[in-house]
């Protein structure tokens, strides 16, 4: 049986467009609002990345740190993250959801325990920022056994040999980091250059769904739409920060932005 992530990509391919993948942080700005946000933006987004926040992130820029801090201040715990996913999935069973975060939380929770909770709540995939290949081999295998996609990351610094190995061991989705940056950096490489790298990776195995992330905003998204999928994260976190500052409702604000992102890649 095809996974929900694979099905989402298949649908997008039929519509000849990239999958729109959003990233928001669980508990930002409240547990309830982060669930409402998922409910609203899932009308337009194809796959939802959902961050479980960590207070010492080594690869996130200011925007995602801000969202994580808000969520942690509100006392978000892993238990809450799974509960939000479960509630979301009740109404949206076919929408794939990917948890993203740092390994220490999984390590403290226990790998098996964590995966069990993923399974029970309906998580479809995992991105673990600080568990690179080949250190992630065992954990990725455990994920596969539970039919949870472990999403491998590739970066502009990844050598071709290493890419081949990673792709070979990857599941149905691979994440290409567009540039040397933390999340939320300004796009400092031209979309043309990014797509060149993207195509090189695609040639290694055209069947794998390859998505591009980092530095993607309303301004840059349409220039990259030949990819299988595009991830927008920091920009969304920024919108939440902004709307809170201006005392606007972050939920409706975010829904509007994701709608307009979607229109740009149709």
């Amino acid at each position, binding site marked *: 049986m095809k996974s929900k992530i694979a099905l989402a990509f298949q649908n997008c391919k039929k519509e000849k467009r990239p999958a729109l993948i959003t990233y928001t942080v669980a508990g930002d700005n409240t547990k309830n609002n982060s669930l409402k946000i998922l409910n609203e933006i899932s009308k337009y987004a194809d796959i939802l990345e959902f961050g479980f926040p960590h207070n*010492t992130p*080594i690869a996130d820029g200011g925007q995602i740190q801000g969202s994580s801090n808000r969520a942690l201040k509100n006392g978000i*715990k892993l238990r809450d993250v799974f509960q939000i996913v479960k509630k979301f999935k009740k109404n949206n069973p076919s929408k794939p959801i990917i948890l993203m975060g740092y390994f220490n939380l999984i390590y403290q929770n226990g790998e098996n325990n964590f995966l069990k909770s993923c399974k029970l709540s309906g998580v479809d995939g995992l991105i673990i920022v600080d568990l690179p290949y080949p250190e992630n081999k065992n954990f990725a295998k455990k994920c596969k056994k539970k039919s949870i996609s472990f999403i491998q990351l590739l*970066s502009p*610094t*990844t050598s071709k040999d290493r890419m081949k190995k990673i792709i070979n061991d990857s599941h149905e989705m691979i994440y290409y980091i567009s540039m040397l940056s*933390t999340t939320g950096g300004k796009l400092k490489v031209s979309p043309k250059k990014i797509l060149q790298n993207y195509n090189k990776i695609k040639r290694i195995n055209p069947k794998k769904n390859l998505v591009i992330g980092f530095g993607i905003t309303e301004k840059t998204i349409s220039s990259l739409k030949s990819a299988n999928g595009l991830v927008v994260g920091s920009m969304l976190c920024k919108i939440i920060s902004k709307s809170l500052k201006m005392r606007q409702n972050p939920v409706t604000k975010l829904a509007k932005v994701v709608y307009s992102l979607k229109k740009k890649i149709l």
Partner: protein
Amino acid sequence: MKLKIRKNLALIDQHDNNFMYGGKFGGNFIPETLKKPIDDLTKLFTKLRKDKKFLKERDHYFETYVGAPTPFIKLDNLTDHLGGAQIYAKVVSEANGGAHKIYNATVHCLIAKKAGKRYIVGDTGAGYAGKMLSMAAKKFGLKCKIFMGAKDIKRQRPNVEAMKKNGASIVPVTTGSQTLVDAVSECMRYWVSNCDTTHMCVGSTVGPNIFIKICAWSTAQISRELIKQIKEEFGRIPKKLKLINCVGGGSSAAGFWNEFMNTDAEFIGVEAGGPKNSNLHAAPLTNGSKIGILHGAAQYVIQDKEGQIGSTESISAGLDYPGISPLHCFLKDAKRARYTSANDEEALSAYKLVSRLENISPSLEPSHAFAEAIKLAPKLDSSEVIIVNSCGDSIKDKDIIRQKLGSYKR
């Protein structure tokens, strides 16, 4: 499983294929982007440590620039005052710049040059790592950027001024607790974005494996000097010898103990216990913290049940770190070293006593080690020898000392 330290292999090399010590400490928990720069650095360092020319270069700068050997002196007055063990100090604070951080900084600049990098970045807590990196960068013609917590910038002003004088740009880190832990995170984030042009120097024996190795390999100079000095003083290594060192990240202790690994010398690491009446501390080994992942490495780390890194507090910015080097976790579990803590008040009164009786003025970090020596010495026989690594100079703490003790004299 009981962990064992192997005799015929340098401690820094006693890891498995995943770069883990004892199967559970260290490793490389890093974003994909850093895999290659870290691999490249690992290959380069592996080559350089075997390169006779490079070693000669290192020794040359250690001798002429750092100032080797640093003095090894007996603290007669302190010994008499306490009555008991003979107390000595390895006065590493006499090294150029005033602390052991100069060894790691110098080696990193030499490596950066070999790697063809023109920029170097580093983190700092007490400011010594940053000061030394800025000094060495200036000497070797590298552009330097230092990440420092905003709280530490305020409390370690003299070192901040020194960095500025050396032409480094200082980036105040205002996230989280605004101390060393956040400075290291921010520095790593900067490196993720700039690893193609920039070399990163982690200021202690923490972080991804290669940084632990380079740092401990550099500070090992301390014990290379000391083992010779001890043999000159005593004719041999004394039978009952205690080597006492403060530990925050653990770089000076790793260097202070390295050459004594296969001797009978007893290693005592002293963590920062924090204020007497506070639950906060910076002593993960003493207080039984669990293993977690911080800054790319598995280690005992102060954290909550979920795995969020915990808050710390210490009067000593250099020890104010929630984690501890994987090397020390390994030494602890292998029972090769034992770890204890001294609180802020004990460190301050140790500073007061040592600087009053002796002609040295240890910073608040080694004052923690002196506090332990002061506790132990009276209980020991005069045939026993205690050596404290006086690894930093108090000048950087003059504001804090003046505030806490009313005056600061040099």
